[in-house]
């Protein structure tokens, strides 16, 4: 069944090529994307079940043996994130098709589907790869697709935001190439399992330097304080489904890369754990304070992404099984909930013609169902029981308190404060957008989804996709027990690296 491992990478890439060929047959194009992502979702689910039963599955690409060729490795962590990401990609695709962003006919070739599939392939590759250089390639595949998706349409706002985004991403990629080169110079290999073995012979100081450089590289991609300012600047200008998938997946791929490299290659050398905790606290607090002063729905949500990346760092910074399990569950929860919130923001923007908090109001009367769709994930983000955010946060907080150190306890206090401030931020949006007198619809001059915004009727497919996403968030609560069990087994694998190393190197 090892054929399943490369499938989530290969299939979307082939489909992306076909999608360009089918550019003039829109129905076929849509069907192709949906079927492809549905198949990869199914394959990921089977893969997760297999990996959980038999341990890590490894494929050596091109039959080149492990330290020389590229290994694709599916262990519990990558398989779990793969399942969640494919599910989110599928829901957002449904939404995008409903919205009609995919085929507005403004461009010579409708490139949306092809780019979306390449993005899916890049995300899957980043989760599956067991090779540092291939991780760089995966990031590039993902980012190149995201550059095009972000600047789709090429309006002034998109180009301005796209410029920042591309320059920052390219800078972090250059740093990643540099650190891969340095790792190769130090160990003579880029295969992660092999690096994990050989880096033991590298002097402690050099190991720490490599580890921290990698932390900076992936910190930019994950939008960790103080490397986050590109995110709230660029994400809100993209069309809602694009922002939703970026918010859910791209930063989380960065978080995954941090978790993977800091547990597999480096093992909390020196004060890495403390450094992570300090930056976790700063990311949480600065992010949420940013969210409180914004007056645009999408920008508020963008700042909450930054803020909640801090929770995942907090779990990692503890370097314990409980902490890592909490971080993994939090990542799963956050992928689903943050995507859902951006999808709902798209519904709001379509109805109100603007995402501005100052110029909207009374939506609870006009569109009660949208209000419910907003409220559930918003309260989940703030950690109100029994929603998924509460489950994920409790695990993290318990892990922090169990650690007992001063810094972990401070971080836990900051996490609780951030949680309360998140509640304030989402309630502030609720009051401004859903309560109050009904605002007159005045569409923005350059609203990012410039497709008949402000019309009363929302395509049922958009509502359906958002509802499915909200239900997905609720499902996390329902399966919280088994999910935590799985996350704990995944965290065990991360702490005890022998399973991963022997699976790859044989």
């Amino acid at each position, binding site marked *: 069944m090892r054929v399943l491992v490369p499938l989530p990478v290969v299939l979307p890439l082939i489909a992306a090529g076909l999608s360009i060929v089918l550019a003039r047959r829109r129905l076929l194009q849509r069907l192709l994307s949906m079927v492809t992502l549905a198949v990869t979702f199914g394959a990921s689910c089977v893969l997760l079940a297999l990996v959980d039963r038999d341990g890590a599955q490894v494929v050596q690409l091109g039959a080149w043996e492990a330290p*020389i060729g590229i290994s694709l490795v599916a262990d519990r962590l990558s398989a779990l994130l793969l399942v969640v990401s494919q599910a989110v990609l599928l829901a957002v695709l449904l939404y995008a098709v409903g919205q009609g962003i995919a085929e507005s006919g403004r461009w010579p070739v409708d490139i949306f589907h092809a780019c979306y599939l390449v993005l899916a392939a890049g995300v899957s590759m980043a989760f599956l790869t067991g090779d540092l*250089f291939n991780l760089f390639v995966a990031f*590039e595949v993902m980012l190149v697709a995201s550059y095009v998706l972000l600047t789709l349409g090429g309006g002034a706002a998109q*180009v301005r935001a796209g410029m920042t985004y591309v320059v920052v991403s390219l800078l972090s990629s250059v740093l990643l190439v540099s650190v891969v080169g340095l790792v190769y110079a130090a160990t003579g290999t880029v295969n992660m399992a092999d690096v994990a073995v050989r880096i033991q012979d590298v002097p402690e100081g050099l190991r720490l330097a490599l580890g921290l450089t990698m932390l900076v590289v992936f910190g930019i991609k994950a939008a960790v304080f103080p490397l986050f300012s590109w995110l709230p600047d660029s994400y809100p200008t993209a069309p809602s489904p694009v922002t939703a998938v970026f918010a859910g997946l791209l930063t989380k791929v960065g978080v995954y890369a941090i978790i993977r490299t800091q547990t597999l290659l480096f093992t909390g050398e020196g004060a890495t754990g403390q450094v992570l905790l300090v930056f976790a606290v700063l990311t949480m607090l600065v992010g949420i304070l940013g969210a409180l002063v914004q007056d645009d729905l999408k*920008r508020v949500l963008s700042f909450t992404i930054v803020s909640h990346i801090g929770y995942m760092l907090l779990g990692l910074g503890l370097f314990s099984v409980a902490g890592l399990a909490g971080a993994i569950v939090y990542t799963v929860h956050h992928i689903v909930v943050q995507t859902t919130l951006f999808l709902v923001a798209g519904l709001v923007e379509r109805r109100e013609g603007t995402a501005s908090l100052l110029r909207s109001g009374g939506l609870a009367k006009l569109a009660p169902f949208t209000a419910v769709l907003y409220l559930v994930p918003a309260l989940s983000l703030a950690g109100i029981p029994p929603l998924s955010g509460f489950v994920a946060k409790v695990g993290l907080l318990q892990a922090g308190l169990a650690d007992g150190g001063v810094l972990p306890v401070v971080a836990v206090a900051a996490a609780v404060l951030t949680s309360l401030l998140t509640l304030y931020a989402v309630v502030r949006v609720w009051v401004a957008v859903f309560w109050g007198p009904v605002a007159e619809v005045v569409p923005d001059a350059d609203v990012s989804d410039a497709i008949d915004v402000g019309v009363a009727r929302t395509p049922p497919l958009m509502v359906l996709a958002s509802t499915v996403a909200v239900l997905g968030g609720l499902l996390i609560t329902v399966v919280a027990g088994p999910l935590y069990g799985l996350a704990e087994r995944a965290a065990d694998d991360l702490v005890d690296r022998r399973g991963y190393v022997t699976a790859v190197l044989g």
Partner: protein
Amino acid sequence: VTANLTIAVVIGVLYTVGTYLLLQRTLTRIVLGLGLLAHGANLLLLHSGGRAGDAPFVTPKGGATLTETADPLPQAMVLTAIVITFGVTAFLLALAYRSWLLTRADEVQDDVEDRRVQRLGAEEEARRAAAALQRRPEDEA
């Protein structure tokens, strides 16, 4: 790995100049800076395999075995990295050109929303100051 001082210095210069150009406000300079930085990173990656060895297809004199050839792995990787940075730089240039078409300015713009929030804050302050001025005569009366 034995390093070559000349190449190390070249890498250093490329990083320095690249970083300097990246900090400018002109888009063309930023693109050039990123190009130089990427060259530096690629050279670093290439050099991580050690110094250049013998040509792989030529049998050395005296029938010795080919043990002195360079490590091919970084060369394969650096080719990939060059292609990727080339592609992304081309995209960045296209974006810079589009930005120039739209704004007629070759400059990085400020975050629109940030400036707006800042302006709102200033307006709020001005309103408060005006309100305080209005209230004062009433207090006295």
